């Protein structure tokens, strides 16, 4: 009886032995992946969405910003940077959750229907591929974890060859494409979940990074041919709350108003100015980026002016001040019903993948395979046209067209976490060259890869730091 007296009956928690019994428990385990990807310290809620973008050639920083945040655009990141660790650990935390779902659902569970099981496994495979896609490009030499860890004694994993990581990404994405439903096959309420289109897009991006243009082209054509997606009519419509998870959307981080429990979009605060918007204004677009645009285009006006409400970042008492330009594209004034200070309460979704990206990818792949064909021009000009920019006509040089597409990608997708990876897949030299063109703080060659976080190096003797750190 004493033993019973001492038995723990956890309350408010579920122990893992009693899980995966029915469809709704299996679904909740998959939702747990979304929690780690888009919420809490999730990668695409904040860190993975902001830091690589801030490290690209398009952004600068506020001088008084917290050190850890500004060390990204300043190229100061060292292995002890806690934000770096947060990116690393939340990616692997998400992978751990994916592995738990994949591993557990692959076992025999009489309570879970086979149809649902396959789809849920597909969803987990998609997110595992997505995490690895970011990991391998940011760090290069990363451990590849494909099984759930359950034993405290067997946690150390060594770094894999990047080629093996890419191989795994492709395998996972291919399987996800096969298993996942199209966006339209989800209930309307569920359409924010990962779909076949999202998996194809990730697969295409991976092929492009590996230079496998034919395979990429095939996936992109499938997306375009699926008729699941289209462009919103105007550039303003793209970012309207009313159009979230809509026509142009392929994958979004979903947020709503509500300070707690952290349902709001926390990355917004990094773009918005302190005065008026009560933002942190940590990162702002640099002159190099702004110079790419036609300042009279609809896109420029919408992305950066934010209805013209640009306030002095220092308030009334201070007179001689230079204006900083802020990225305002994600802020839907219409939804707000005007202007309200809302540092912690932004409901706007993070755009992870949208259809404009697909069209620009098509333009690029077409150019690589067949040169600057009319198809390539057409894809590019669909985006430029909506942005209020002059169409690009009659380019014959493949290299020139490639640069035009890249610049267009930078302009259209600024702040949406693509530029850093676009530069990287062009190779180390291209990346370093671009970054050096844009910013005063000189990037050192080894900073093409970020350092492996010190915390893991210290506990896992199998890991090796990236060279130069």
């Amino acid at each position, binding site marked *: 009886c004493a033993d019973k*007296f001492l038995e723990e009956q*956890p309350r*408010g928690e579920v*122990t893992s032995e009693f899980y995966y019994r029915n469809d709704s428990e299996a679904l909740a385990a998959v939702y747990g992946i979304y929690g780690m990807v888009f919420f809490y310290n999730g990668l695409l809620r904040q860190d993975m969405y902001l830091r690589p973008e801030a490290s690209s050639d398009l952004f600068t920083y506020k*001088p*008084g910003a917290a050190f850890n945040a500004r060390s990204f655009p300043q190229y100061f990141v060292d292995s002890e940077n806690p934000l770096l660790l947060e990116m690393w650990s939340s990616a692997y935390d998400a992978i751990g959750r994916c592995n738990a779902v994949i591993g557990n659902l692959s076992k025999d569970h009489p309570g879970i229907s086979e149809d649902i099981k396959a789809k849920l496994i597909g969803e987990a495979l998609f997110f595992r591929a997505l995490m690895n896609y970011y990991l391998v490009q940011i760090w290069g030499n990363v451990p590849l974890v494909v099984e759930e*860890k359950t034993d405290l004694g067997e946690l150390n994993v060594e770094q894999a060859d990047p080629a093996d990581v890419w191989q795994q990404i492709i395998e996972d994405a291919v399987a996800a494409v096969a298993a996942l439903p199209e966006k339209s096959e989800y209930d309307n309420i569920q359409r924010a979940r990962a779909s076949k289109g999202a998996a194809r897009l990730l697969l295409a991006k991976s092929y492009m990074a590996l230079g496998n243009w034919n395979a990429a082209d095939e996936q992109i054509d499938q997306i375009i041919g699926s008729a699941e997606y289209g462009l919103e009519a105007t550039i303003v419509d793209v970012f309207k709350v009313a159009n979230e998870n809509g026509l142009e959307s392929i994958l979004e981080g979903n947020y709503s108003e*509500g300070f707690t429990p952290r349902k709001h979009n926390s990355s917004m605060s990094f773009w918005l100015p302190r005065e008026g918007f009560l933002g942190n204004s940590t990162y702002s677009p640099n002159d190099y980026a702004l110079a790419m645009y036609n300042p009279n285009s609809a896109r420029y006006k919408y992305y950066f002016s934010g209805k013209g409400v640009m306030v002095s970042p220092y308030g009334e008492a201070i007179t001689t001040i230079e204006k900083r330009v802020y990225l305002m594209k994600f802020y839907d004034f219409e939804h707000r019903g005007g202007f309200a200070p809302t540092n912690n309460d932004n409901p706007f979704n993070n755009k992870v993948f949208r259809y404009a990206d697909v069209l620009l990818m098509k333009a690029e792949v077409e150019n690589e395979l067949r040169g600057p064909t009319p198809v390539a021009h057409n894809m590019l000009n669909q985006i430029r046209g909506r942005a209020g920019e002059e169409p690009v006509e009659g380019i014959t040089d493949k290299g020139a067209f490639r640069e035009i597409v890249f610049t267009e990608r930078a302009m259209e997708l600024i702040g949406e976490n693509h530029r850093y990876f676009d530069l990287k897949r062009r190779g180390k030299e291209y990346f370093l060259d671009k970054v050096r063109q844009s910013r005063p703080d000189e990037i050192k060659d080894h900073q093409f890869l970020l350092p492996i976080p010190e915390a893991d190096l*210290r*506990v896992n003797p199998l890991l090796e730091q990236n060279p130069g750190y």
Partner: protein
Amino acid sequence: ATKSQTVTLKVKKQPLPEVLASIKAQTGYLILYNDRYVNPQMLVSIDVNNQRLETVLDQLLSPRQLTYYIKDQTIAIRRPKTTSAQITRPMPVPEVQQPEVSGTVTDESGQPLEGVTVAVKNSRVATITDSNGNYRIPISKDGTTLVFTIVGFDAQEHRMGTRRVFDLRLKASLSDLDEVVVVGYGTTRKSDLTGSIASVKSEDLNIGMVQSADIGLRGKVAGVQVTQISGQPGAGTTIRIRGTNSIQGNNEPLYVVDGIPLSGGNNAEGLATGIDASTSGLTHISPSDIESIEILKDASATAIYGARGASGVVLITTKRGKEGASNVNFNVYTGMQQLDKKVELTSPEEWAIMWNEAAEYLNLPTRYDVNNLPARTDWQNEIYRKAPIQNYELMFSGGNEKMRYMLSSGYMDQKGIVVNSSFKRYSFRLNLDRKVSDRLNIGANFSVVGTNSNVAESANENATDAVGATLLASPTLSVKENGEYILYVDMDNKNPNPVSKLREYVNKDIRSRLLGNIFGELDIIPGLKAKVSFSMDVSNGKANFYAPKSTTVGKLNEGLARVGVVNTVYWNSTNTLTYTKEINDIHRLTVMGGVTWEKSVGESLSSTASGFVTDLLTFNNLGSATNLSTASGNPNMFSIHSYIGRANYSLLDRYLLTFTGRIDGSSRFGAENKYAVFPSLALGWRLSEEPFFQPLKATVNNLKLRVSHGVTGEQAIPSFRSLSSLTSSVIILGEDANAVGFYQTRLPNPNLKWERTRQTDLGIDVGFWNNRLSLVVDVYKKKTTDLLFAIDIPRTSGFQSALQNIGSIENKGLEVGVSAQLLSGKFSWDMTINNSFNRNKLLALSSGIQEIYNPTGGIISGDTKSQPTLLRVGMPLGILYGYVFDGAILDEAEAATIKQSRSAPGELKVKDIDGDGAITVADKTIIGNANPKYTGGWTNNFSYKGFGLMVLTHWSVGNNIYSLQHVMNTFMDRGYNMAKDFYLNRWTAENPNNHTPRSGHDARNYVDNSWHVFNGSFFRIKNITLSYDIPVNTLDIKFLRGLRAYLSADNVHTFTKYPGYNPEGSAFGNNSLAQGVDIGVYPNAKVFMLGLNVTF
């Protein structure tokens, strides 16, 4: 006649006075009694052979409800009072008409002393005082000397002259070996102690402003370091008994109040709503209710508390009623508190000069016209105030042979020196004892306490808290503009206005606690006693927070409200059997065994809401908010089932042995390790009682050697940690705004078990000249193995850390305590002084790891990137780790030679420790140690006639403080206010130097550097109290028995080089990894107060 302490008697139905006379003849003892109680009609029979005197007396007197005292060859027999009529009846007047002296004998507090032997010196004439302390004794002639003696008090002799009325106040003896000391699950004579136990009595505890008993312990006991980390009214202290022996546990001792372990200590109290309200469990006990505090230090004393004893045990005994007259005591004090010292920061002009320097250097947009500043604000003046304190206590006590009671109530109202902070306590207590029959006693203790605090936000590692932000606010900004609080108080960061927070926030912490205990004691057969006790500890906490829209947070959220409740119910059933046996006056044996069950169940609930139309409702109507978070429950439970045992054996009163053991089972540990055994053994040798020692006894009246060894444990980890766990989170997925996700948050660890601490203690107790001078010295060594720690695991596993048993820690130390009665007589001077040395060392970490950097639970300040914590084998816990500050880069020539992130003239320079030419993490090293070399206290009591002067000091020497506040106060690029010494010494282009960096230097890559490490040594005059006992006998007010007035100053002065508010301040409370880190800590107040204590 030769005096022997044994008696041989064989009588049958003899009158008691005759039997007593033959005892007197045999022993040479004087026997005093009142013939109303002892008369020839009482016939007794007894048959004893060479029995101890006390045994014989027990046998003769107990059946007749008589008791006795023995002191200095005198036996005083008396009868406990039965009715109040008898109490007031004076002693019978001797028939013979002859001169006599009469009067009243009281103790120091004016309480009448019953049973005091009053004897005429050099004669056989003697009497004893009655229940009102009155005596009447015939004397033969003028000039007779009277001798007053009673156990527990110093004997006094007084020449009467022609006086016929003589009242006397007796002083408790400084160190009486017959004193009874409370030990775990029982009591023992001090002379029989084998363990290291320090005892603090009520009168030593309640000196000065003592909001809770732990504060009263400061500087009083060797080996016990009491640190007041925050001046927040109602905030607790941290107590370290013989060092830090756990990383994960909170290292706080176990508190046991009248036999009930206070469940969970601070943990059970913490409200999960993010409100800083650390109050210790002792906050819920009115200090004046406390009779004594015993601090158990070595394993012999603590092993009986098994898995909770490793950090020491503090036993609190509350006052109980005494037989005799009803006693009423009223104590009141009132006082004024103020900030001890301000932190020295730049003036507005100095600040503007520094800002302009930085702005020019960093190409920041703003410049100031130093002669025309937008505002001049001293932010510290905006948040500190003079604050009153008042305290009232009323206590009734008394009783008779059958029933005794103590009834008390108290009210304390303390305003804090930070605006809007306050603490109120209402306390009630009833302690009852009832003798049901000769063999059965029952009793109960009940206390109800309510506290109500308004908490000032303080201590946060990024100084965004109100107290810290006040020191960062730019002096050229005004608190309000156009009637509204400004939102941010720096140039380019987002530090919210602290004044708006402190003035406008509602931040209530409301708690109530009911401690109840009923017990029964039954004498089963002679020598065998059973005790059964059942206790409950029910505590409720409520947190109410509201940030109105006039504040920054309130504006961001359109009003933000949080409420939280915590509710814990703990019960404890303790059942013991005690057997006492004496054999031939040679062997004395006490054996105690018992079994206990304990269980605690706690629940909490909290809710946050934002978006309020109006500020009027504050936290009272969360439903009116536009955003309401899902309330979260956080249940926890634990149960402990234990067997306890102790044997005390004493041979010839000289050789002492104590064995204790506890078998503890706890729900918190892995399935494989539910039970553990905690044994201890101790030996004592009273050398001074050896025959060969007798020639020395006039000088050394007491000499005892003690040695003990034993094992204790630490189980302070949260519930359910050995099990794997899935946790839920609510996510948003398109229109499905409340999808619930589940995920695993912990890896299971079925091997999780207790920390085990082995401790060896060697002690010596010496008393000189009848204890005029006494000395206690202890050396100890503690080794803690199976150290619990949430160790970092590779993040690639998907988890961040796992609680495991890793490594071991050693503490060893020396404690010296001296007490001396330097002067006695009209002018008396007593003092006690203690000093302790503790050395802490991490012996090993799991599987050969030598270091853990930035360990989980240490300081990682996100904003400043400051990470000064490290665990390193061979070093103590609490070392500070970082770069070595090497001044400033003097000029361009030097800048060219230095490879660090920023190298320019005036930039901060750190040492290249590994000499590889570059500054990397490998250049970090140990830059400080938060552990003091030694700590101690010195108390002096002077008295002259009715006046008393008490001076209490304490000190800590050799500890370092890492000041995150200083880090922030050197960050000019944020626009924070700057430390004055930085302004005075900084590098400027005109005045370059190589010791202090320039304004606007880029320190942040190397922010954890030794520039911010300070010597935290201090010597504090903690309290000076002047008291006067008004001689009530001369006032002719019948009902008044004692009247004392006192004047007290608290925190009188602190001698220290530390530039912050308080060298003891610690932002991270009892976190053993973050010792000595100061930022934004609520400062201590200097207090002046006036009090009155009246006894009726």
